[in-house]
């Protein structure tokens, strides 16, 4: 069985980092990197690596739909709203790394399998990818009334998109805590820290539960950390779970840190790394699924 063909829309930081990761994938063949700025660093790097490029945006796919079966969108939420419609018409599976949230939310370690029929899936936010697995780990053991996360990222790793859309980050992440993490209510906070050398991405997760089964929660959290590490090697449990009695139940505190793989961006950009790593995990799952479907069709035929 051959690899599945994929294109990346967007040749900025995320798109370029994703390119390096896809080059290592045993299941995905990166066929095209699409930007809109001809002399962007990402496109230049792709050309050096012998990867086909285009600076014509999504038109490149409209003209050559055969170039890709799945399309990673690493542009912006605004652009993705347009792209989503076009990709649907072309019959391409879209893996959306922007906060556009057109399709269902996916976190590879939590709900990878049941999103396979969706034509468009969304990766929520970096803070969501880092924290939702922890909320899900707790909510698998017992109900989480309320989950709150604080994502602290280095200023250097927050591009203009994040900065101009900081509210969208908080809404989208909070929605993910509920829809994928399984919390009753969600709240997300983001803090930018300009320290030099830049800090690693760190996230604190708070869950409110009643009478916690401490051993079961701790075991579930550790297992989930391993599940995330399978696709984000720099993901690490820094502290917790800590259990404290509060006014309205118990507070479970979990702290994680994400060190980036350093593919395109330095290791402090763990927030970008966890998005691109999650995108690869989702893409590979689609690749396996489509390979399996083809085999099934062949068997029937």
């Amino acid at each position: 069985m051959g690899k599945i063909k994929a294109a990346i829309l967007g040749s900025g930081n995320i798109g370029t980092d994703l390119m390096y990761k896809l080059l290592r994938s045993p299941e995905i063949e990166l066929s095209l990197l699409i930007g809109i700025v001809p002399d962007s660093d990402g496109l230049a790097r792709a050309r050096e690596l012998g990867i086909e490029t285009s600076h014509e945006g999504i038109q490149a796919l409209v003209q050559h739909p055969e170039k890709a079966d799945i399309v990673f969108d690493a542009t912006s939420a605004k652009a993705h709203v347009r792209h989503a419609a076009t990709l649907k018409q072309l019959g391409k599976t879209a893996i959306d790394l922007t906060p556009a949230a057109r399709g269902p939310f996916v976190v590879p370690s939590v709900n990878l399998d049941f999103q396979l029929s969706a034509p468009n899936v969304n990766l929520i936010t970096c803070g969501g990818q880092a924290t939702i697995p922890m909320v899900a780990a707790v909510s698998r053991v017992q109900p989480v009334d309320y989950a709150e996360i604080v994502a602290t990222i280095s200023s250097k790793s927050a591009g203009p998109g994040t900065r101009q859309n900081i509210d969208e980050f908080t809404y989208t992440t909070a929605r993910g805590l509920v829809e994928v993490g399984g919390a009753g209510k969600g709240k997300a906070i983001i803090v930018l820290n300009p320290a030099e050398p830049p800090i690693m991405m760190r996230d604190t997760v708070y869950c409110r539960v009643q009478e916690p089964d401490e051993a079961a929660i701790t075991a579930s959290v550790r297992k989930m950390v391993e599940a995330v590490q399978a696709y984000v090697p720099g993901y690490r449990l820094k502290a917790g779970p800590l259990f404290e009695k509060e006014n309205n139940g118990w507070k479970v505190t979990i702290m994680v840190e994400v060190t980036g793989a350093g593919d395109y961006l330095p290791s402090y950009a763990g927030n970008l790394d966890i998005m691109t790593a999650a995108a690869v995990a989702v893409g590979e799952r689609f690749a396996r699924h489509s390979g399996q479907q083809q085999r099934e069709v062949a068997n029937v035929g």
Partner: protein
Amino acid sequence: MSANASKGKIFLTDMTCRDGMHPMQHSLTPAQMARIVGGLAEAGVPTIEVSHGDGLGGSSFNYGFGAASDREYLEAVAPVLKNSELSVLLLPGIGTKPDLEMAVEYGAKVARIATHVTEADIAEQHINLSKKLGMRTVGFLMMSHMGSPEKIAEQGRLMESYGADVVYVTDSAGALIPDTVKARVSALRQAVSCAIGYHAHNNLGLAIGNSLAAIEEGATHIDGTLCGLGAGAGNAQTEILVAVLDKMGYETGVDLFKVMDQAEDVVKPLMLRPQLVDRAALTIGYAGVYSSFLLFANRAAEKYGVEARAILMELGRMGAVGGQEDLIVDVALQLAQAKQAQNPEPAGVR
């Protein structure tokens, strides 16, 4: 009121019901706030800020849950404002645009949009919205001691370009001294044409002195709280500001005896602890750490058997910024582990 000829007007903002929420552990009730705000309005304080200590949307595990919601507080104070303007604080990343829209429903006239001193650009959408809602808009450059005067000038220009009517040098850590206050206010004055404000914390005992230094360099907007009630060692004491500015010949339009009485008779009996420059608060000013870390550091110190001062010094070394309250327990755990490694007797870590 003043014996001297007027040197000009200073616009005071009282934040007893906002920064004062930190030492109160966000426990002030809407009724208590209404009483405080009513007294401030009666005394003629021009601007009165009401919010969770960490601004709209601040009620959380990370910063402490408020005794009531933002909406309940604003609803309670709206009827007692008289001629005073209601102000709300919003930190992008914590509060969001709908919070601001909600505050306007209750008559908020001033929005103070606060970012770390180097991150003004995350406030663009909130400053834009605030202006669109017709609010007087203040750009709040927090942790100003962490930015050089040049940086403050650059970031202040950004906030002005988004529409800010006033830009503040916000000494969130109470880490500035008169010379460093002057350098920042002066750089800002040369960079922007809007008004300039200064917000003090008293961790080095300089809240009033630094406010005067800022005024000397051209700041016209100054923050205070009754009894100095605020994060860390507290803020500039509103009643002292009124007395001192009066003696110096500045007009504040505030009735000194009325704010004095309000501080002594209403706020003082509510206080959970005296507002002192104690060891931990002084460390905050010395290390340059966000003032609201004080109570969190004290609690973590007790829980994990390490010194609050050691936690705060380490946070300063790491360059922690406002909002990173979650880092305090992390640092306390690391210090406790290091302590246990050195001296393997049972530490208070669970």
